[in-house]
């Protein structure tokens, strides 16, 4: 797996050493990564940090090889990120989440609406939509996962995924998937999420690729419908991997949205 070599700080958050990279200046934007590319400083990070004070933590466990004992659900992450915001003393943030990260972000916003100025959900997952099931990306082959993320055309981005032929790379990915599994294995959706999205009054942007073979597009559309102040923007010619496929266009959409949200 190619992990861009970046400087990261270990920030203690209530006793949990949290890997965090903070770049840029401007209004603080907290970016929560998803199940894929958790350790990668993507083109999207570059684009966002050029305009904002970008806070990009790595979720607990994704660096350490597996979920910590205390991590049993989304609420543990909500408390972790509230504590992280306290630690950084940044006040309100614009919250951006990608995939699983959008699901986490929605929970943070639900429980701490005062800390969230706006919400950006990129290719979000987590809604209970039995007619539009998500790919079982934890139980399928790595090849199938990569093909699904890039709609069959990885175009070189496959190197961002673990290399099954390289033990260290494979083990990194195995540990990261273990954290994802702890969060969503027994429930790949939250039946309460729809109601919670309906109660989030912050301005919200849902960014969807033009075709998503991991989380069917019906999910993003439903997110935008449920969010009272939500809008849906589609990034043409992209798949679930849009954050690495079209970082500039994703960043522009986020930037345009945030310009309309009062700081």
């Amino acid at each position: 797996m190619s992990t861009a070599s970046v400087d990261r700080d270990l920030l203690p958050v209530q006793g949990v050493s949290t890997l965090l990279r903070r770049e840029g200046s401007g209004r603080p934007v907290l970016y929560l990564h998803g199940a894929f590319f958790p350790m990668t400083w993507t083109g999207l990070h570059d684009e966002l940090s050029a305009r904002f004070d970008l806070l990009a933590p790595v979720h607990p466990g994704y660096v350490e090889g597996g979920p910590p004992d205390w991590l049993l659900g989304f609420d543990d992450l909500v408390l972790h990120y509230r504590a992280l915001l306290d630690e950084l003393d940044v006040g309100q943030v614009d919250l951006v989440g990608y995939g699983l990260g959008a699901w986490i972000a929605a929970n943070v916003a639900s429980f701490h609406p005062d800390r969230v100025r706006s919400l950006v959900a990129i290719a979000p997952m987590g809604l209970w939509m039995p007619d539009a099931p998500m790919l079982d990306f934890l139980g399928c082959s790595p090849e199938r996962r990569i093909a699904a993320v890039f709609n069959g055309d990885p175009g070189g981005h496959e190197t961002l995924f673990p290399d099954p032929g390289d033990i260290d790379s494979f083990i990194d990915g195995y540990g990261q998937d273990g954290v994802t599994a702890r969060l969503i294995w027994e429930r790949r959706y939250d039946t309460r999420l729809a109601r919670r999205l309906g109660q989030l009054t912050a301005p919200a942007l849902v960014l969807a690729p033009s075709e998503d073979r991991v989380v069917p597009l019906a999910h993003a559309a439903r997110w935008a419908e449920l969010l009272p102040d939500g809008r849906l923007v589609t990034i043409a010619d992209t798949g679930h991997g849009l954050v690495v496929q079209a970082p500039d266009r994703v960043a522009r959409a986020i930037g345009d949205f945030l310009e309309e949200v009062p700081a």
Partner: protein
Amino acid sequence: MNRLEFYLFHLMPYPFIPPGEDMESIWITLPNSHYDPQLGHKLYHEYLDQMILGEKLGYDGVLVNEHHQTNYAVNPAPNLSAAYLAAKTDRIRIGVIGNALPLHRNPLRVAEEIAILDLLSGGRIISGHVRAMGAEYISAGADPTLSKGRFWEANDLIVRAWTEPGPFAFHGEHYDIEYVNTLPRPLQQPHPPVWLPGSTSAETIDNAAQRRYPFMLTPTSNWLSKGAFERYYRVAEEEFGYTPVPQQLGRLVHTHVAETDEQAHREAMPHIMWFFRNGLKIPPYHMMPPGYTTSASMKKTLEGKKKAGVKGFTELSYEELLEGGYVIVGSPQTVIEKYEQMIEDFRIGMVMSAGGHLGSMPNWMVIKNMHLMAEEVMPHFRENGRPVWADAAPAVAATLSEAAATQPKPEHRPRVRIDGEEYLDALTGYIPEIREQLPSLRNDP
């Protein structure tokens, strides 16, 4: 004489499926439309009849286990097979090796079913406890990252349910059961033997050695087997201060015996290859879902295999399977020699899958294999050729008369109070003469 106990182990596979190259996995995703219920009926009866025959032939025990959504082993409810075997046999030991504890939302179900089996069979049950294969966490939707914790907690809960007076409360990390008061209680005291079947995982071996649970090693090479059994002895002796007896250790190594070495190879080769190429066709992402083992442990295993050049099961040639000791095939004399070597090298006292079914083997060949094993191999490792159960006293009275002569009277006679009258002895009180003659029964409050 080097003693050895002989167990028939049956996976009960359904081999009428495409070859390994043509399927992603024999687990989870191979469509169940391949399964023909008519053929399934025939196979179940052949398989169970083979195990029932094991008693007449003199096997020490028969073993079944639990697997889900796989043609490799079509026995998702092994306690049902065990119940059938209990009804159709009289003395042979019956092992469920095992129930996959973490797949149960309430592990007391296992405690209950094993207790029922123990009573029905007259105390012949061995209760194997397993975590379930990685693939079963995918098919069951059970969280693999919590599997180890759930397994050990469920194991401890089950043993306590069998041994401690109820009701008691169990408040675990994974199971919260306010009233543990399991009925029935098992016949064997303090409880049916618990076996831990497992691979070469150090954690399983260490825990088995600590708890003095017999450890049964699943198929692997001689080289890895030696390390696993040595570890059990070392951990028992150095960390827990006792020397295990060989009967605490068993090895699952499929053995095929025929009149000559050549004939044995002719018969067994296709079925052994079916088993290793097709039956064990499982991709790593089904075998090891995320969190099923720790990253550190996974890394150690992968690096060890890479360093030693260990091939995957499906990549091994027939010759490599024989040379590596994954299977044993030959004339009675050859098998005796290999078993003697195994006893010497591993200090074990039990062999499983000793002359039984494997993979796609037809019924007649299994029975021939079993007969030769019983007649030509077993006697070499036993006094008078007798299985363990032949020399053990039955756990229950065989007849009503024996029960009446030997068993203590129950603490309570069934009594009932009818409409404010005196207590009526339900067994005899309806006979007025007896009622009159036994005032103590009437007046007993």
